[in-house]
């Protein structure tokens, strides 16, 4: 809660009386970062597939998401085992509880990336459109930027990650809202089915960034014990797909 709290307290780096436990905590953190990087890469890949209408990438996105799901199961198992066997308290407890939540955020984000290319495949590719395509690309870029910031905050255990990501997320909301307006205006040109697919994709991109904001809040909790305040803008049941 206080600004001067030792940032390294959650996952101490020094070798000490609980070296094995510390290594396990570090392992879990590494698993989360690895999983986050895979998801980020896959969101970018899904973005390329949509912007360039590359249906060949749909299968690749699916395969990588399967890897993400596999990592999720392994990291979750290790986290639960550690909770059960080590009876962690204080910073260790906060980190492990946050880890179970971050795992969920990452897994859902991976699903949303795959949902994007499922939309693409359903309409047999998105047409190139002078207004829509650049906005779609900008939305993907904005969403990836926030997501990357979330993974960095996790890797570095940034104390005020929650607030920083919450602010960064506004850009994504703005882009997606633009995309939605333009797609609606030009729905006759691209066809209704494509317009609906594009608007859903916009929603998925927005949700991916929301999950990154949640990751930021979990990181803040880990480091400072501060729980997210009111205005927690993402809830699980809002996920589309």
């Amino acid at each position: 809660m206080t600004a001067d709290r030792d940032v390294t307290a959650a996952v101490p780096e020094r070798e000490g009386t609980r070296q094995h436990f510390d290594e396990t905590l570090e392992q879990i953190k590494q698993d989360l970062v690895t999983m986050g990087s895979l998801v980020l890469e896959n969101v970018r890949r899904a973005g390329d597939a949509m912007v360039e209408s590359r249906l060949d990438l749909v299968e690749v996105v699916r395969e990588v998401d399967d890897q993400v799901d596999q990592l999720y199961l392994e990291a979750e198992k290790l986290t639960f085992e550690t909770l059960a066997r080590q009876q962690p308290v204080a910073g260790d407890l906060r980190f492990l509880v946050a880890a179970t939540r971050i795992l969920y955020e990452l897994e859902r984000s991976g699903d949303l990336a795959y949902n994007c290319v499922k939309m693409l495949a359903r309409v047999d590719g998105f047409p190139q459109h002078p207004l829509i395509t650049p906005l779609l690309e900008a939305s993907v870029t904005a969403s990836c930027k926030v997501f990357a910031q979330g993974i960095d905050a996790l890797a570095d255990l940034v104390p005020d990650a929650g607030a920083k990501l919450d602010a960064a997320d506004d850009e994504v909301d703005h882009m997606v809202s633009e995309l939605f307006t333009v797609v609606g205006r030009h729905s006759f040109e691209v066809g209704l089915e494509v317009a609906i697919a594009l608007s859903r994709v916009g929603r998925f991109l927005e949700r991916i960034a929301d999950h990154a904001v949640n990751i930021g809040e979990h990181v803040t909790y880990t480091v400072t014990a501060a729980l997210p305040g009111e205005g927690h803008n993402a809830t699980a049941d809002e996920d589309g797909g």
Partner: protein
Amino acid sequence: MNDTTETLSVDTADMPPDPTLTAAPTAMKNARETPEEAGPGVIETKNMDVFYGDFKAVADVSMNFAFNEISALIGPSGCGKSTVLRSLNRMNDLIPTARTDGEVLYHGANIYAPGVDPVEIRRRIGMVFQKPNPFPKSIFDNIAWGAKINGFKGSKADMKDLVEGALRQAALWDEVKDKLNESGLSLSGGQQQRLCIARAVATQPDVILMDEPCSALDPIATLRIEELMLELKENYSIIIVTHNMQQAARVSDRTAFFNVELDTKGQRTGYLVEFSPTDQLFTSPKEKATEDYITGRFG
């Protein structure tokens, strides 16, 4: 202050009243009836130092123990937590060189004030020890004896009621009701410890001090004692010293963490680091030293 040279392995019931000491102040006599008039907590220490001869065992302890709560004292060996506990009912008086400075207020009255009867203090602030220590007498007499020594004047039937009531409060009645004349030593370790709790309860204290009460017990017996503590706090304030941090986390409302430091003369003196609500202490302790200790990164 050092009124007797008895060993430490005695509790409330074990000590005869000392007629040379006057009765407890009025504030204490009516303590149970009007606790709210006596101050914020049932026991309050103010800048308490405890010495053994020249050696300062604990320094400057100021704590407020709330009514009907379980307070746990944790910390590494030598941090003075047992010393603090024993100072709360003048059990340290039994050590010839021990001296307590500062104040220990019980219902607002200083138990170290001149004229306070330590035996009366120990009747009101009972104690349960690490090793179950029933008297080598029958289960019935283990409880009845303490009550008699403390001036119980009722009939035989009253005494039976008292024994049954104490055994029920200690969650032992159903297990021993058909063998009250058997030796207290015939019981299992966990049962013996509950018998000691019944013996402490029989003198009608309002505070029970427990010094590592489960460290000699197996996990099941330990959980039974913990369950019993949660029941007892309805009627008593409980202060427990434990090496088992999970035990403090499971049962206590507030936890105090004591640490130890070396002074310039190389003496190890214990001090209070943090006294916080238990949920807070085990999820987000205020002090880095607390975090290091409870997460096992101590020393």
